[in-house]
């Protein structure tokens, strides 16, 4: 039973697709082996959201996460930044349709995107699509900065893990 379940997870793994739809739009998609209501729950409950939004492997820490998931409601994510600083991401929800659609703003900078999450359930699986729309081409491209830093810490952590694993042997 467990083996089969693991097989299911493996079959949807590594299927994340990222597409530049236009100068200022980025579309990310992936299929999950679960009904939409479960994916929606994992996205909208802070205690669950906290567990995956900042991948462990990226070496960043989410200090707090508040989500008031209703139209006009606010969210606020605070990350540890550097030695003692912190960095906050915040915005508000523009649309909330359970369990299939969530639209929110990213207001930490004037260049933030409006992000739309759609969940489309089919035969027990859910196609998840994240659509980021930026105010300009430049804003869209500048956003790579964040991903940049993250993949850097990704590499650093990989190195650290290799050292730790070989030290333990």
């Amino acid at each position, binding site marked *: 039973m467990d083996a089969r*379940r693991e097989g299911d*997870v493996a079959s*949807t*793994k*590594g299927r*994340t*697709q*990222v*597409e*530049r739809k236009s100068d200022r739009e*980025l579309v*990310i998609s*992936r299929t*999950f*082996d*679960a009904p939409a209501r*479960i*994916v929606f*729950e*994992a996205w909208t409950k802070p205690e*669950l959201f906290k*567990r*995956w*939004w*900042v*991948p*462990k*492997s*990226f070496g960043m820490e989410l200090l707090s996460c508040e989500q008031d998931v209703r139209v006009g409601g606010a969210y606020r994510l605070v990350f540890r930044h550097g030695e003692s600083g912190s960095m906050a991401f915040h915005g508000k929800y523009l649309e909330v349709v359970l369990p299939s659609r969530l639209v929110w703003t990213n207001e930490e900078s004037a260049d933030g995107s409006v992000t739309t999450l759609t969940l489309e359930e089919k035969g027990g699986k859910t196609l*998840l699509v*994240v659509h980021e729309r930026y105010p300009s081409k430049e804003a869209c*491209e500048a956003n*790579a900065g964040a*991903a*940049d830093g*993250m*993949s850097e810490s*990704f590499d650093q952590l990989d190195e650290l893990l290799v050292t730790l694993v070989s030290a333990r042997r």
Partner: protein
Amino acid sequence: MVQYQQARFDASFAALADATRRGVLELLGRADASITELAEKFHMTLTGMKKHVGVLEQAGLVVTRKVGRVRTCKLGLRRLEEEAAWIEKHRQLWDARFDELDKVVEELKRKERADGRKKRR
């Protein structure tokens, strides 16, 4: 794939190891130019410049197109490669995120199944 990339890197580095070729890239970064124009700018023979452009072309740094008797050179796939790298960075972030989300989702599914069994009892 790895071997192909390695070959591409080797070709790129070899192409960039020459001052004239770096100059040509810099120039093409500002505007497209014909081989004749490039030869004049670098005070070279047409044959000499053709050789340099050939090396750059092999490395994928420059593409050329012949219209009539004029061969025009422009910067190659580099911009496309930058774009691909940019997309790949986003993909890595979201892929890592979604691997973690998969775990949360699986746990919720298990819980739901267990709760369902309890209710039926």
